[in-house]
């Protein structure tokens, strides 16, 4: 009798917490998880990217609580790389973030499985399982991942980050799971009138991104590695 009472008293708080967590799930989210029919992707038209424009970067930093004035140890999920072809002198300005590869090397090398690919193609880091070994940072061909080198302040409630863990672009998964249709960077670029970033479902033939990649020439970065990134570039 006493044992049953103790057992019940120990289990009750846990069961309460499960109910509270379920109740807190935002309306409209499916408890089934990410949709495997979807492949989220991005099309970046570098011909519309002005050198020196950082609207996408600023929006990403604000959305995810990143350092607006980065130092060599700050996390940068999205950066603008200014490139110039050596032989021809042709210049371009390229926003580069996690490419959300279909064959992500970061997922292969993660010892705990913290780095994982969701059914809808988004490559993420599970901050509960990340031990901060930085093997994924070594493995990424795009230098997309950042290691958090110090205590963080002023974090965004929907974007969990932590000292000692590794992180990268999440394709604003917290927005997508709430039912929003686009990422912070794409939204900011569109709002500013540049229109260089298109976000959408590559598997949906009627989506804007699927139409555009059918019509114009696009390329994947380091395509020879055959990682099949979800981010495509035009103008490179």
């Amino acid at each position: 009798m006493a044992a049953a009472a103790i057992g019940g008293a120990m289990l009750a708080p846990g069961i309460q917490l499960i109910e509270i967590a379920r109740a807190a799930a935002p309306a409209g989210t499916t408890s089934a998880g990410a949709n495997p029919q979807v492949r989220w992707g991005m099309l970046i038209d570098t011909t519309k990217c002005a050198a020196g424009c950082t609207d996408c970067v600023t929006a990403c930093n604000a959305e995810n609580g990143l350092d607006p004035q980065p130092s060599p140890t700050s996390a940068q999920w999205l950066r603008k790389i200014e490139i110039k072809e050596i032989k021809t002198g042709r210049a371009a300005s390229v926003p580069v973030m996690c490419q959300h590869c279909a064959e992500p090397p970061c997922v292969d090398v993660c010892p705990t499985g913290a780095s994982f690919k969701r059914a809808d193609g988004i490559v993420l880091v599970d901050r509960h399982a990340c031990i901060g070994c930085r093997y994924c940072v070594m493995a990424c061909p795009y230098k997309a991942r950042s290691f958090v080198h110090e205590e963080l302040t002023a974090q965004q409630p929907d974007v969990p980050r932590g000292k000692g863990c590794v992180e990268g672009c999440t394709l604003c998964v917290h927005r997508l799971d709430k039912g929003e249709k686009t990422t912070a960077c794409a939204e900011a670029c569109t709002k500013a009138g540049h229109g260089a970033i298109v976000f959408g479902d590559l598997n949906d033939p009627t989506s804007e991104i699927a139409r555009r990649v059918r019509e114009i020439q696009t390329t994947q970065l380091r395509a020879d590695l055959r990682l099949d990134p979800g981010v495509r570039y035009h103008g490179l």
Partner: protein
Amino acid sequence: MRSPEDIRKFWLMAALGGAVTAVGLAAAHFMELHGHVVTGMNNQVVWGLPHVFAIFMIVAASGVLNVASIGSVFGQPVYKPRAPLSGLLCIALLLGGLMVLMLDLGRPDRVIVAATHYNFRSVFAWNVFLYSGMTGIVIVYLWTMFERRLNHWSKPAGLAALVWRFVLTTGTGSIFGFLSARPAYGSALLAPLFIVLSFGWGLATFLIVQSTMYAWESRHLDAAVQRRMARLLGIFIAASLYLVAVVHLTNLYFARQGAFERFILLGQDGGGAQALLFWVGYVLLGAVIPLVLLFHPRLGAGPNGERWTLAAALLIVVGGFAWLYVFIIGGQVFPLEIFPGHVAHSSFGDGVVADYRPSLPELLLGIGGLGAAFLITVVGVRAFDFMPQDDFISAAEA
């Protein structure tokens, strides 16, 4: 019976080892408390000096067991009495290296997560089993050597240890071999290279410890035994140099690897420090000079070869650290080429050689690992009879 002098020496050595280890632990605590911002590492160079120390120790740990394998598995009588010491050093170096590796994690408090969540496509996940299993197998191996009733099991245990450490060192080399992203890595040759490097670094470490122990006990290593081991060390160093040469030579035939090879070998485009470490640190000090010291008939191969062999062994260790520094850090500071044929610059260090300066906490953590290995060796040698007994072995018979 141990003399008061011996007892005093032991406590002094143990205190020294303990102090060095404690400083290493304090450095790790400092790094964990404040985050890696207190180190020289940044988002371009995420694996720094602690990894150089840790990987040297782990590779040397695997190689130091070679001495036991040559005795138990290949039946060479001169090496049999050395097998227990070799086993002890394997455990000591492995635990020291693992200590550094685990304390350098961003979340060392989550080692339990690493022990309970496995992604078996990752070499790191296999390594959790390979490294802990190695320790277990060597403990069993030592037991079969010390417990007379189990002596006939020492050959199978030795064979198991040999096979296990080949897999372990293949895993260590493959940590880098499986990375397709960077020109410094991604080669099938890295696994066998690490195995051969382990032979050299392991035997060098063994010879250093053996010399020290003999000096401590005021004994002399038989000249013929000394010459054999010196020759073997020389062969291992030559083989390592050969494989390193093949790796670089092959890379030179791939145009896309050219810039990286010029960076490391010629010091072009900001690679000066790396080239210096490679040629002077590894090739000259770590390979060529030791080869001369080990094989020259008036030096290591001569009648007073012991101190030349010791000098060569020390230089080989220095060269090993130099090679690992160029391999691990040189491979990271070289800018990742996302846009071939283009110059690039960004707020994230794209297109420029990264700046990495080893910091004091990193150095102290690395040295702390060496201290832990030293402490384990000192305590082990005190507790058990690890001193190689050559009295009944005639080197002429071997």
